């Protein structure tokens, strides 16, 4: 097994110390930081996202793999920053809508999107329409909204309408999710996408960025 495959395997197993060690080893072998990121860390994390989507692994495995990815990233980041070359797959801004404090699903989406190479900003919970629109105006290419209550999912449509009014429809895409949200709901409020879980969110984000 070559070093990059070993990195991906150890990442899948959630072995942070091993991933850190192998990442350094890969660099010492002369493999570029970009290559280690794409074919070591992102490759491993993408598999984890797929396994999560299939219910083969659950939240604990995703979070342990995320820690392993962070350990590898800590080694790569200074080099990537210096070369300034690595482009993310897209800028995503996530948030749980106004009045809602649920965050676990949203956090898993953030982990998997970062793991797939997206640049993710997580605004947190209880996020107003204004804050989502501001993020869109500041360069977000995808806005991801999460809601878990029937009473708060109603805050999704105003965000989509506000983006339209700001002339951003089509330029900034929206994906929605949350246990009670459905494809039917997404279609009826004009969201560009809907995802049932973090793994599916990655697929949808790639599709919306024309990367599928």
């Amino acid at each position, binding site marked *: 097994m070559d070093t990059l495959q070993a990195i991906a395997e150890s990442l899948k197993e959630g072995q942070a110390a091993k991933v850190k060690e192998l990442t350094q080893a890969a660099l010492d072998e002369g493999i570029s930081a970009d290559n280690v990121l794409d074919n070591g860390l992102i490759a491993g994390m993408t598999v984890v996202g797929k396994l999560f989507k*299939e*219910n*083969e*692994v*659950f*939240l*604990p*495995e995703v*979070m*342990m793999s995320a*820690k392993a990815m962070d350990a590898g990233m800590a080694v790569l980041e200074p080099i990537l920053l210096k070369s300034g070359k690595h482009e993310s797959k897209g800028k995503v801004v996530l948030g749980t809508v106004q*009045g809602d*404090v649920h*965050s*676990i699903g949203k956090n898993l989406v953030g982990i998997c999107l970062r793991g797939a190479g997206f640049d993710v900003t997580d605004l*947190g*919970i*209880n996020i107003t329409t204004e804050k989502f629109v501001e993020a869109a105006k500041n360069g977000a290419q995808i806005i991801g909204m999460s809601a*878990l*209550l*029937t*009473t708060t*999912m*109603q805050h999704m449509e105003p965000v989509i309408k506000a983006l339209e009014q700001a002339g951003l429809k089509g330029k900034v895409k929206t994906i929605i999710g949350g*246990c*009670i*949200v*459905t494809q*039917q*709901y997404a279609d*009826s*409020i004009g969201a560009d996408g809907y995802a049932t879980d973090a793994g599916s969110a990655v697929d949808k984000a790639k599709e919306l960025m024309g990367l599928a």
Partner: protein
Amino acid sequence: MARDFLERLASGEVLVFHGPIHTLLEQETGRNLEGHMSEWIVNHPDEFQSVVKAQCAAGCDFVTPGTQGCGRYRLRPFGLEDKQYELILKSVQLAREVTPENCYLVGVLSTTGVFLEPIGDMTVDQIYRSFEEQIPPMLEGGVDIFSIAENDTEQIAIAIKAVRDHSDLPVIGRNLFYAGKRGIRTLMGVDAETASARLQEAGADVIGAVCGDISRPIEYSLITVKEMRRGCEKPLLIRPDAGLAQLIDDKIVQPVSPQEMASEVPKWIAAGASLVGGCCGTSLEHIKAISAAVKGEK
């Protein structure tokens, strides 16, 4: 009062659990609750008490003070951590004032929203203390029973220990289950049978399943009861939500109707449930239908 709760269950009685306070407050007041729900409750005592009374009139045997967001990690994003004692005490007192003689006031311990090491950053001790500090104001306010729901069964076990260390009141431990390709499991991947066995081992007096995703279709809730029964011998609580919401004519409609939920009740009881109810998205109509179904089974 609290003693008699467990005796009633032991004698085979079936009780109706309280509804989802956030959904009901917004439905009945027709308004969005702004900010932290418990702060809203304390600032709108009349509206809160009217919803409590409406639930009991609809057939609930339990009252919730809506304190599931009063743990320190939940209060922190709202800057309300130092108001914890006061928010819990006032919520419980408001609920106590209008809890009918034959109903039980539940001390609803807050979900933490954080994870234990190594998955997250919290130690067992930190989680224990975050549950422990909620107990004194609940006891002062006069709760009859404690209840705790968490995504991580281990955190429920820690909460049960905190309750046991400070009170003899009964405690209901509730897992959240999600139906998926590998059956009915918690977010952590633990199946319903194992998770229920764990709670029996941890000392829960009643073991339950709430919320999560076991109502699409609603038949998954019955499967959940059966699996819980295989894992433990304690009285069981089943409280699924009303299914995935749909937007129909600009209104949010939950597909599991009161009648559909009510028709599951006899099956839940036959499979071993002693406490039945509905979670997110259920209305007073659902509660009335569930209550009628329970009475019909007597």
